[in-house]
Structure formats: C-alpha cells, structure tokens
C-alpha cells in the first residue's frame, strides 16, 4: 500500500505503524463524572465499518507524524490523509 503523506507525498505503507480508528484522537476527560462509561466506549468499542474508515497511521520510519488516513476497508482505496495533529487541533476548536 501507499500512504499519501500530506507533506511527503506517496510513501510506502511499510514505513508506517498502524494504530486503529481515528476516534482514538478524541480521548474523553478522565476527571469527568461519567469517565468509566466514556472510557469503556473509547478504549473498546469500534464502528469497524466495511467501507470508509478514518484511521491512525504513524510514520515511524519517516517523519514521525501521526496521520489520519481515510481508507475504504472493502477496497483499500485511500481517499485522503491529514496530519493527525491538525485534525486534533481542529477538534479542540482550533485552540493554538
């Protein structure tokens, strides 16, 4: 597979380490009242779609960026890739 790195172009997927669903970016608040429930959901439950999947890849043998890659799990077609850091910052309201 080839991963379209947003800064470096197409890169051999072997340079990357796969983690899983990009929802792992959205870590719940561990000090909240309902943390037990939200963390169970966060750590263990997955949509596991047969189709478009947003997922985390780490460019371990490259620039050490975490990427959010959008990929179809039925065809392996890659629909896009972003720096996970940008995705995470956007989710936090663009807080700089």
């Amino acid at each position, binding site marked *: 597979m080839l991963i379209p790195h947003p800064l*470096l172009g197409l890169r*051999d997927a072997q340079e990357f380490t796969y983690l899983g669903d990009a929802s792992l970016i959205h870590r719940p608040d561990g000090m909240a009242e309902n943390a037990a429930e939200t963390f169970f959901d966060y750590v263990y439950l997955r949509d596991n779609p047969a189709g478009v999947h947003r997922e985390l890849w780490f460019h371990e043998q490259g*620039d*050490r960026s975490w990427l959010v890659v959008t990929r179809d799990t039925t065809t392996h077609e890659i629909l896009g890739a972003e*720096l996970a*850091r940008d995705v995470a910052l956007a989710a936090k309201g663009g807080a700089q």
Partner: protein
Amino acid sequence: MTDLAPMTALGGSLARAQSFGALAIAENADLALASLAQRRGAAQPVPMGLALPGPGLWHAGNGMAAFWTGPGQWMIEAPGRAAEDFAGAVKQAAPECSVTEQTDAFVAFEIASSAGAAPILSLLAKLVNIDAAGFGPGSATRTGLEHMSVFVIRRAEDRLAVIGMRSAAGSIWHALESAAARLQGE
C-alpha cells in the same frame, strides 16, 4: 580536550572505507549532528545563518547543512565537528528552539560514485523504496532499510549519504556492502 579515545560506530579507531567498482562507501565518523525543533507557535529560526529546508529537502550552507526531519524539526549537520559540543553551539544560535545532541545517535555513510548517477540509482533501487526520479540532489528523507530506519540524503548527482542508528552501524554497513558487491557481480 578529553583524554579518552573515541571509537567509530563500526567499532574501529579509524573510519571504514571500501570501494565496490564505481561505488565507494565510507563511514563518516566526524560528522556532528544536532536536532532542532521549533517551539510551539515560534517562528522558524535561521540558526547560524543556515536557511532550514522544507519537507523532503536538504540544504547546505556556511560549512554546515540541514535536512528536514519532521514538521518543525530539522537535523543540522556539521562536517568535521563531531568532537565538539555542536548541539551547544546550535542551541546558542537558536536559544528559542529545542536542541538535542544527536552526533552519536547516528552513524553516517557517505557513498560516492565515480561513474555518475547511474550506480547511485542502481544502489538506491536495491536498498530503499524511494523513486529516484523524484529524489534529485538536495533531497533527504527517512525511510526503511532492512528493518531499520535511515535518513537518505542525495548530496549530489553522484553522492549519497545514508544515516542510521549508530548501534546498528554494522547491520547498515552489511546492507550497503552486500548491495554494492552484488551490483558489481551483475
């Protein structure tokens, strides 16, 4: 100056060098390295007057060079300055950055061709999954090589540097040596 005697990454007192037909591979034991990372929200620095290159690039100037290693991160190279506290010097030049000594974190191998670019390209094809067509002089990237991760720098049409983990120097040498020797056998 310390009275301890340094040892090269390959375990010798002298750097190793060997030729394979048109290709010469040499351990560069005197290369100083320091990493430099931008602090959050800070402007991109110009340490010691060296313009820092963008993603995938290497740039030389002022007797030094720099290559991009990640978003907001570079490696600064200084030939011949391995014995110095080079990171200290970089930190002084870029006090607002995070600077880390990396000289001995890596082993550098300089590969030169006496027959132009072709042997370099053949070697690249056997070593790493980099499309040589888009990897002209001034390119630098990190990639996998025989289960290791290395920086590959195209210093010139006929010159290449492979920089990898110092502790794996022997394995990297073995990979380079085997590939070069087999090219010779073809």
